């Protein structure tokens, strides 16, 4: 068993090595035809840029780095040239920005320019990278069924291991995660080989070549599957955990990956039926509304469903079951946090200061999302073009862009997931997700959900607080005999699982102030008035 596990580690690292190595190899050759198409598509007007890049790029075998640098350098050169003219022709200037230029200009050029070995061996490459990593991952986790001993809580050594206690392995892992997100969001021109590796899968599913987003979706599902297996084994004594993990994995694979890709195969809009606004912040963007409105009955259905989901389904379900039905049973972000992120849950900050920051931040993002969407809808219905300035030199497009960059990419992706090994696995869900903020308000003020504290059984050991991914100081409530009713609780159920004394239970019960939050003093030994007590019972 131990041998299988160790072999699994080796195979996984081999897969990773191939994956990372693939970023540094491969050549790209832009044909004259592809080049012309690109110039037309991007509407590049600068003759200087065209003249130079034609000379330096076309029909030349270049590395991704070299090719990208040529494009960037020439943008800068031609911009300088045009800006030095007495009469500046702004049409010829390309606004260069690190977070946009690579993905919007270079990526489309390079995506189809790969030549040589990789293009012809994508299946082998798929096996050597994803195949080995997935296989190795399973070989690492499956032997735990025997190695971890009888079923039960298996947290031995978590705070003594470098990977799960912010040690050197943790920081290296974080570096890897963060780098991946930065490449994915801002520099997809450097990850063409991994994208090519999943080309076959993409073509089989929807007939189109893979994009960076298909790669991301594929990796997301694979990682969740491997780590779900880990959860199934670790919590095999706990049905709540195994069922929850299976369901959240199902929603990711079916609703966030397969169904949208199949929709695309049938020429329908890519649509994730479970992704609710405001987490799905582009839902009310003009391009999305127009896309849905132009997609026949299905498009209209998607539009109506999206609105009903946010306005009715979400709050009603939170009333009955708490926000857990979404955050730890359905949501993709939650799904990743509960699988890949599970080994890092104990790193969340439990201090009062962190709670204060959390409340400001998460509700701040909610306000930002509402304001951004309000503005978007205003210009949409007022038929003002979204790029047009509406005051203070700002357009609706600008605001959408800021939100997309700051919240959509940086917060949700780079920080939210990249920092799993440093800040814990729910950084985005706790501090940033506007949908979580909305659900939290419903859960806090009008819901049947609570974590019930079992009378006076708490021994203040702190396992619950330590393993709360949302940084809730569960013990602070439990040791006072109080039920836990908190906006941020996603109902993962781990506090209840790790409690050695059977003190905590996630429940949906009658929603009256008394039954949901009141403390039963008698159980805590605070019954000073015995007579009154006998009358009461």
């Amino acid at each position, binding site marked *: 068993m131990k041998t299988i596990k160790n072999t699994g580690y080796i195979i996984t690292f081999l897969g990773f090595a191939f994956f990372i190595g693939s970023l540094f190899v491969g050549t790209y050759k832009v044909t004259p035809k592809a080049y012309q198409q690109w110039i037309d598509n991007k509407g590049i007007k600068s003759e200087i840029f065209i003249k130079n890049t034609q000379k330096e790029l076309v029909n030349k075998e270049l590395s991704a780095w070299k090719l990208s640098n040529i494009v960037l350098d020439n943008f800068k050169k031609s911009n300088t040239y045009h800006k030095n003219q007495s009469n500046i022709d702004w049409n010829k200037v390309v606004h260069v920005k690190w977070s946009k230029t690579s993905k919007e200009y270079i990526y489309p050029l390079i995506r189809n320019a790969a030549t040589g070995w990789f293009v012809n061996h994508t299946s082998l490459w798929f096996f050597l990278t994803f195949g080995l990593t997935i296989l190795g991952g399973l070989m690492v986790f499956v032997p735990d069924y025997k190695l971890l001993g009888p079923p039960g809580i298996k947290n*031995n050594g978590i*705070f003594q291991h470098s990977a799960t206690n912010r040690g050197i392995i943790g920081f290296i892992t974080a570096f890897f995660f963060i780098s991946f997100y930065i490449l994915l969001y801002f520099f997809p021109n450097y990850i063409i080989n991994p994208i090519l590796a999943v080309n076959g899968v993409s073509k089989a599913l929807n007939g189109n070549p893979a994009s960076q987003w298909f790669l991301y979706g594929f990796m997301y599902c694979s990682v969740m599957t491997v780590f779900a297996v880990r959860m199934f084994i670790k919590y095999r004594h706990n049905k709540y955990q195994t069922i929850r993990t299976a369901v959240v994995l199902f929603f990711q694979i079916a609703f966030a990956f397969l169904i949208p890709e199949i929709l695309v195969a049938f020429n329908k809009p890519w649509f994730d039926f479970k992704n609710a606004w405001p987490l799905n912040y582009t839902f009310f963007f003009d391009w999305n509304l127009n896309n849905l409105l132009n997609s026949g009955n299905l498009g209209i259905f998607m539009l109506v469903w999206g609105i009903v989901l946010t306005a009715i389904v979400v709050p009603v379900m939170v009333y009955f079951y708490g926000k857990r039905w979404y955050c730890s049973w359905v949501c993709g972000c939650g799904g990743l946090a509960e699988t890949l992120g599970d080994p890092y849950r104990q790193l969340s900050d439990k201090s009062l200061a962190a709670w204060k920051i959390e409340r400001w931040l998460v509700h701040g993002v909610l306000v930002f999302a509402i304001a951004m969407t309000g503005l978007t809808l205003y210009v949409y219905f007022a038929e003002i073009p979204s790029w047009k300035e509406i005051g203070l030199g700002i357009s609706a497009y600008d605001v959408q862009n800021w939100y997309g960059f700051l919240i959509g990419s940086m917060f949700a992706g780079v920080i939210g997931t990249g920092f799993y090994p440093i800040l814990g696995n729910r950084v985005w869900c706790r501090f940033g997700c506007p949908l979580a903020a909305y659900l939290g308000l419903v859960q806090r003020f009008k819901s049947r959900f609570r974590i019930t504290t079992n*009378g*006076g*059984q708490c021994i203040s050991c702190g396992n619950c607080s330590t393993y709360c991914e949302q940084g809730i100081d569960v013990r602070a409530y439990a040791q006072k005999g109080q039920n836990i009713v908190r906006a941020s609780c996603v109902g993962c159920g781990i506090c209840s699982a790790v409690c050695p004394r059977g003190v905590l*239970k996630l429940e949906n019960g009658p929603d009256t102030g008394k039954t949901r939050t009141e403390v039963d003093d*008698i159980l805590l*030994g605070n019954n*000073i008035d015995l007579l009154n007590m006998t009358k009461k019972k």
Partner: protein
Amino acid sequence: MKNVVIIGNGIAGVTAARHIRKKSNHKITIISAETDYFFSRTALMYIFMGHMKFEHTQPYENWFWKKNRIELVKAYVDSVNTDAKELVLDNGTSLNYDDLIIATGSKPNKFGWPGQDLKAVTGMYSKQDLDTITHYSKDCHRAVIVGGGLIGIEMAEMLVSKNIPVTFLVRETSFWNKVLPAEESEMINRHIKEHHIDLRLDTNLVEILSDENGRAKAVVTDKGETIACNLVGLTAGVSPNVSFLKDSGIDLDRGVLVNRQLETNIPNVYAIGDCAQQHQAIGERRAIEAVWYTGRMMGETVARTICGKPSEYQPGQWFNSAKFLDIEYQTYGWVWAKPRENEARFYWEHKDGKKCIHINYDKDSKEFIGINTFGIRMRHQKFDQWLHEKQSVHHVLEHLKDANFDPEFYAQHEDEILAKFNLENGTDLKAKKKSWKRIFA
């Protein structure tokens, strides 16, 4: 405004301090030499096992004490002068008080075994004990644990988690069978062995042998066996940590003797928690209760008394809980190891051998007396209510689903349990569906 001094920063002392602060403006000082801040002793094992760090065992953040004007002094109290209302500390200073609360907890029992003070021989009670275990476990090839109680099995679990071979010497013929009935005790015996712990029942420690550096190298048992080991855990229970009070004039027996108001024989001196001993045991409880929640309850009670509302310690219905490796245990009311004259028993065990319930009730009146539950969580509030109401065992069984506290989706066993009871007793009880209405009645 009084000057209240509390000796001991465990759950009893700290609860007292918190509640005095809630109710008054008194000056509060807590003296402890164990740690700077209150931590949860019950979680020490989890630090060793790597489930937590020490800071996680501290229920309050470090700013809490200053914010609540609770002064912390790190020192031992050498002696108490009740006439001058003065404490002498080991750092040479002294401290005056108006009200004194003694909350010094317990210390591990040692029964005069030869070699009990050698290096790498330790109890498992304090932060210092944990440090000792951590230190000597690094090169430990085998550990021997002496004493088959709750702390002994915790220590065995700790060491096994580090893949250290453990021999577990238990004086009784079955694990903890002074407290647990035979069936439950046997279940835990099996579970201990399942975790590859070398369980030696009916075996006593005779002597601990020393190596040339004064560290334990082996133990000798009363079976004549010598077991090579270089870490020895002494976990044969605890007793009140009160020796520093010997000449203080405060009445002592095994613990500090107190009345129901938790007052000692000296005015303005109180004792709470593990170190307090009731003149008359309350109900079926022991006169000294070394249990987490009783410490908390006593702390709260004494706070009321000190803040001008003299109160009796009212521990209510007995309950307790523990965890034996992977098996959780809860108990409500009384289930003795052996049934008393008037008692009848009902036992059900799940086929996997890791879950069971054992109910104790009156043979004639059928009044429910208590339950042990292993591997199934039960609702404290429900059993407390049934015990107060003196409900019959039939009522308890019929409403057992109300009391289930297992996480959602867990297999439910009430129907099976009732079927067995019906079969044995010729009754026709049916489990009622869980009712929120009844639960919150």
